[in-house]
């Protein structure tokens, strides 16, 4: 056999070993996982039935499981909380020092074990879990911080809200994710959020204004939000007007009506949406936005107007002949969506003499909406499309 043949055989042997080794590894790890899963299912069943007391059978089962599987399952967010708490308690009871050491472990290499240990401590309700989570938030490792933020949110107590609020200030992680946890807090935290409105950083003021929406009904919060609505930063103004609207105070209407003329388009859009549900005053203030230069503002205005169908026709009829085609389109679309157009059609307005009052409104809506809106109306109402197109084109 020459050298090349030997090389070929060696290479083949090596790849065969790699393939076989990998195959066995895949199968074995899966079988172990399934075995652990079957045992854990029994534990979960017993654990829930036994009101989380370790007794008899579950305890015996738990002892048969490798620590790694127990830890992983306890820390897995997919594990139902009662079962996870049972497992976490068991793991902590067996290896307390090790779990606490891991929960403090620095460095990226051990970050997943650190996260797992933190979760076990949190689930088991260990007394020093919170300081360790606080330490984790300060760690600087994005994955550890993300997990710690989620765990702090799940604790839902005053101290955890304070840590989260601090993390929001120092931007230890994506602010929207921290804010989502704070927003879920069961504790009243308006006093933690109000100072954010005074922050130098505009993003903090924005999050303060956004998170305060839950407390917008309180007088001191409404006042602070009213001031924030005059913030030099547009994102803060937009957040403030939206939060104020949740409180449904008179200040909310006044602020929103003022901000529909804001120079920044997204503030106008938020102001328009804030007026949704504020009925009467809303329609008149919002209707001019149908001619706004921004499509998003026009869309927000349409949504708001559709939310007040009672006044929509009265306000919008003038916009059907507006000089701006967007305003005409928008008015027609709102009248279509609020049912005004279909009501006119089902009342037989299309067949009345064209010089009467009814057909004129109908004609103006159709003309403002254009051929596609007219064709849709005809299809919806089982009418002759060409006849309606003719009506739309007549007069005016």
């Amino acid at each position, binding site marked *: 056999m020459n050298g*090349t043949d030997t090389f070929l055989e060696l290479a083949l042997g090596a790849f065969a070993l790699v393939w076989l080794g990998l*195959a066995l590894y*895949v199968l074995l*790890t899966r079988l172990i996982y399934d075995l652990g899963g079957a045992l854990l299912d029994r534990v979960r069943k017993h654990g829930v039935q036994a009101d989380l007391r370790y007794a008899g059978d579950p305890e015996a089962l738990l002892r048969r499981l490798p620590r790694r599987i127990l830890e992983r399952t306890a820390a897995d967010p997919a594990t139902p909380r009662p079962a996870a708490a049972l497992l976490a308690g068991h793991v902590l009871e067996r290896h307390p020092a090790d779990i606490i050491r891991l929960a403090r472990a620095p460095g990226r290499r051990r970050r997943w074990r650190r*996260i797992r240990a933190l979760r076990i401590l949190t689930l088991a309700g260990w007394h020093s879990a919170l300081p360790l989570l606080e330490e984790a938030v300060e760690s600087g490792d994005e994955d550890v911080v993300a997990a710690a933020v989620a765990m702090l949110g799940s604790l839902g107590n005053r101290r955890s809200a304070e840590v989260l609020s601090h993390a929001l200030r120092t931007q230890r992680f994506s602010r929207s994710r921290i804010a989502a946890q704070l927003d879920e807090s069961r504790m009243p935290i308006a006093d933690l959020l109000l100072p954010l409105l005074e922050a130098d950083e505009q993003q903090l003021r924005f999050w303060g204004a956004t998170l305060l929406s839950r407390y917008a009904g309180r007088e001191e919060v409404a006042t602070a939000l009213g001031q924030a609505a005059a913030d030099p930063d547009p994102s803060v103004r937009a957040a403030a007007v939206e939060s104020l609207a949740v409180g449904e105070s008179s200040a909310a209407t006044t602020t929103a009506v003022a901000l529909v003329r804001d120079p920044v388009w997204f503030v106008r859009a938020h102001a328009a949406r804030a007026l949704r549900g504020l009925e009467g005053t809303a329609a008149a203030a919002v209707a001019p936005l149908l001619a706004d230069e921004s499509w998003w503002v026009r869309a927000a205005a349409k949504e708001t107007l559709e939310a007040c169908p009672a006044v929509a026709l009265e306000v919008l009829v003038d916009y059907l002949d507006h000089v701006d085609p967007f305003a005409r389109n928008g008015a027609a679309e709102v009248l*279509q969506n609020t049912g005004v157009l279909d009501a006119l059609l089902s009342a037989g307005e299309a067949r009345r003499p064209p010089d009467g009052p009814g057909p004129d409104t109908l004609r103006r809506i159709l003309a403002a909406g254009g051929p*596609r809106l007219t064709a849709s109306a005809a299809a919806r109402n089982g009418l002759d499309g060409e006849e309606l197109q003719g009506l739309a084109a007549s007069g005016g």
Partner: protein
Amino acid sequence: MTSKRIRLLASGTAFAALACATVVFHSDLLTWRRNTVLPLGSVAEEPIRVAVIVCVVYLLCVYSIGYLLSLLAVVENHSRVREGEAEGWEIIARSRFTIPVSVIAPMHNEEGLAVRVVHALLELQYPEFEVIVVNDGSTDQTLERLTREFALLPFDRFERRVLPIGTVDAVYRSETEPRLTVIDKVAGGNKAEPLNCGLNFARYRYVCCVDGDTIYERHALLSSMRLVLRDPGRIVGLTSQIVVATHPELPYRRTTGLLGSTLLLNFQHLEYLRSFLTTRLAWSRMNSVVCTSGAFMLYRRDALEEVGGYSPDFSCEDIELTFRVHEHFLRSERPYRILSMPEPVARTEGPDRLGGLISQRARWQRVMLETTWHYRRMAFNPRYRQFGLIGIPFCILSEVLAPFVEVLALTTLAAAALFGAVSWPEYGFAVSLMSLALASLSVLAVRLEDVGTRSYRVRDIVWLIVLSPLELTVYRPFLVWAHAQGVLAFFRGDKRWDRFERNLR
């Protein structure tokens, strides 16, 4: 619509390997190393020798890089799986701060699956989203079936006209499902136009463009947006794993599994796994994802609009768009990321007939050539960083050059056989070697999938392992044929958007 852009690590190179390895290790042929002459004569000897060297060097390059990529993919997969375990999705699933998403599903003659696809999309577990179905001039019952199922009524809506979209006939809204909008438009002849149409109607900051013949998992948006929400300022695009299934409308656990499927679909299943889990994950880690799969393209809407939306000038839209987004952000020197996730987010139907498979893969080869040719200025250009210096060159090596090397290898093999220079027992050795090299990557992909989802039945894992060494000899030759067809179509300037016929049920 089908445009599952699956690019393989060793795409097309394996058959070349088959031929090259056979020739190079032939004892007679190897005599040139020992400065002796071949029995086949001096005229044929030199060209064969050169061809063999070219093919073997090519093969070694592709496999070496492939194995390196797999190592990176293992690290990336581990991180993604652990991230999911560490954070959980509950808060994202109910928070008002979760960024809403517009899901756009273009459909052309999808009467068989349309209703089920839309139901699956509407059942997505996500706090706020809308579903925009664009019926692109279907000539079958697609629109009628949707109308019946979702009580659609024509209500006009004035869209933003930021991208050219052709003629919209009507806009429908559902009486039963307020999140659903159906747009009926005149057929555009490609997938780009209905996607752009959906973009014009989309209201939310992120858009997820999906296929009309693919069934999505309930967690699809949550699992992908989980990562986006960490850094929405930088993450402009994301794709995730698509699974080939015989009955995509049924969850895996309610089917007979892979053993109940055909061999052809099982090979495609394995191929998709390897592509998504051992290749794209690695590119994702290097921010050099070459293709965001057309079956699940999640993009920030403003990024799509900045680059001008989907281009109808290419045979397929997804790979070209990915290149364009990379180019746009790298040229403007703005931080950005395009990610690929390991989680399976959808089940799709693969062609269950050879003709369909060959036509699909020929189209993919064609679009790869169109795109790399169009963006050739980016290759080896430091301005485009790792995408220009590593991503595109590897793409050229493994995808663009593959058909040429395959033809060269086959010709060499034929010539060597003609001159009696092939030793068939050694041929068998070489084939086994290459088969196992590819199979090891496949098994690794199975492992990555299993560790992330634990969804396979054990018997299906065993079946995939058994199949893996057969892929090179049983399945790959058809892909070689498809690649050759794709190259010819590219040189003919063919830009047809042909999709395979739906499988019979």
